[in-house]
């Protein structure tokens, strides 16, 4: 039996209204990636994470648990969970991520910031004040809650004198660049994806030789909503990689299935499986994604048969001096942390 749509959406919307994010995550943990990077607070140009990469480990954990109850009698009790979630943070128990995933996604944001620095881009960060952009509420059609959140984000940017925002994921880019101007009068924030910023920069030159064939998985939102298609390819080539293309690519890319994961986890997994097959057939040595949701869904569907990583992880190996850290014991995959 499918999950009760109204209650699952309601639970996320309640979180957005009360806790300003769809999944519970402490602000302290959301900004941990920036430790030791010495990024100034605020400024006219800021990196805007929208907490998408930080939220993903929590979403992965929640989806796993939702998938377990999708066909069981427990699905009927989502409404009860929603009732108590308004008073206590019940969703925090549904979404307890693995340490490995938290560190993996944190590392990606860190890599993106390092790439921007390496390219000579000057930017600040809003740290604990930064807010989730509301993409999930928008996609699910919860317009009232979305409008409130969009206005909160805009007010925040204006209060801090921000004029240009550098986004790091396609969903936040789409919200801030294409959706907010349609609902906020006088919206005047310039929004660029970090991929666009890096591609336009002459300051980024390879420091290390990387010889590898990388298959590009275009995100639907970047390619069909925001026309970010050439930039990732250009950057991979500049880094020294050979770009491989899957059957469905560029503006005709195949969705990873991620957008329906919160409501239909099993179906999302099937769509991801179809895409993984196309990516395998491209016969690259690795797959580059540029959206945290794509990465999580495809990783899950590939079951370790493909090397799938965020594009920034490939780029940083060529463009930055990165310290190799010893790999953690695999058993840590199953250790969970509190949100």
């Amino acid at each position, binding site marked *: 039996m499918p999950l009760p749509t109204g209650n699952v959406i*309601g639970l996320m919307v309640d979180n957005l209204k009360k806790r300003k994010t769809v999944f519970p995550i402490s602000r302290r943990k959301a900004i941990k990636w920036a430790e030791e990077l010495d990024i100034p607070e605020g400024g006219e140009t800021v990196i805007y994470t929208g907490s998408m990469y930080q939220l993903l480990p929590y979403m992965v954990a929640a989806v796993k648990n939702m998938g377990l109850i999708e066909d069981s009698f427990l699905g009927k009790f989502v409404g009860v969970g929603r009732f108590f979630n308004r008073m206590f943070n019940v969703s925090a128990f549904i979404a307890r991520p693995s340490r490995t995933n938290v560190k993996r996604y944190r590392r990606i944001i860190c890599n993106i910031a390092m790439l921007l620095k390496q390219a000579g881009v000057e930017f600040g960060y809003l740290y604990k004040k930064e807010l989730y952009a509301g993409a999930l509420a928008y996609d699910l059609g919860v317009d009232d809650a979305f409008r409130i959140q969009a206005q909160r984000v805009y007010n925040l940017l204006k209060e801090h004198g921000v004029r240009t925002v550098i986004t790091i994921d396609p969903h936040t880019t789409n919200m801030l660049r294409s959706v907010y101007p349609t609902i906020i009068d006088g919206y005047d924030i310039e929004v660029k994806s970090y991929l666009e910023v890096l591609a336009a920069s002459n300051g980024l030159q390879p420091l290390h030789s990387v010889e590898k064939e990388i298959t590009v998985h275009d995100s639907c939102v970047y390619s*069909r909503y925001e026309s970010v298609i050439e930039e990732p390819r250009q950057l991979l080539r500049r880094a020294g990689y050979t770009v491989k293309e899957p059957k469905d690519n560029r503006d005709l890319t195949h969705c990873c299935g991620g957008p329906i994961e919160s409501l239909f986890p099993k179906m999302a997994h099937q*769509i991801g499986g179809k895409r993984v097959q196309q990516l395998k057939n491209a016969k690259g040595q690795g797959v580059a994604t540029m959206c945290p949701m794509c990465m999580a869904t495809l990783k899950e569907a590939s079951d370790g048969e493909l090397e799938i990583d965020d594009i920034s992880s490939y780029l940083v190996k060529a463009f930055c001096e990165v310290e190799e850290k010893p790999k953690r014991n695999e058993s840590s995959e199953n250790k969970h942390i509190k949100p």
Partner: protein
Amino acid sequence: MVTAMAKVNLDFKKKVTTSGEFNATACMDCGVCTAVCPMEIDLLPRKLFRYTLLGLEDKVLEHQQVIYQCLLCKMCEVNCTADVHIAENVRFLRSYISKEIFKL
């Protein structure tokens, strides 16, 4: 065999036509959207849009689950020969359900 007659909900029809967000009148029912859908959803978007334009709220709500199964990936939209804003139409239906049914 007697089948129940489809019921037009004028209030629903009015909300659809006055919203300014739903527009599928250009749809020629060519079926390209169905052919390219990664979800292989037969209903979306052409049949569903017909129900909506006709004001058949019951028929639309009967397929509520399918409306949320859409990935909003726009594969159909970039291939649409009539330039229908399919994803925005689906989002409008979700918005209607969120407000009128789920009371969110």
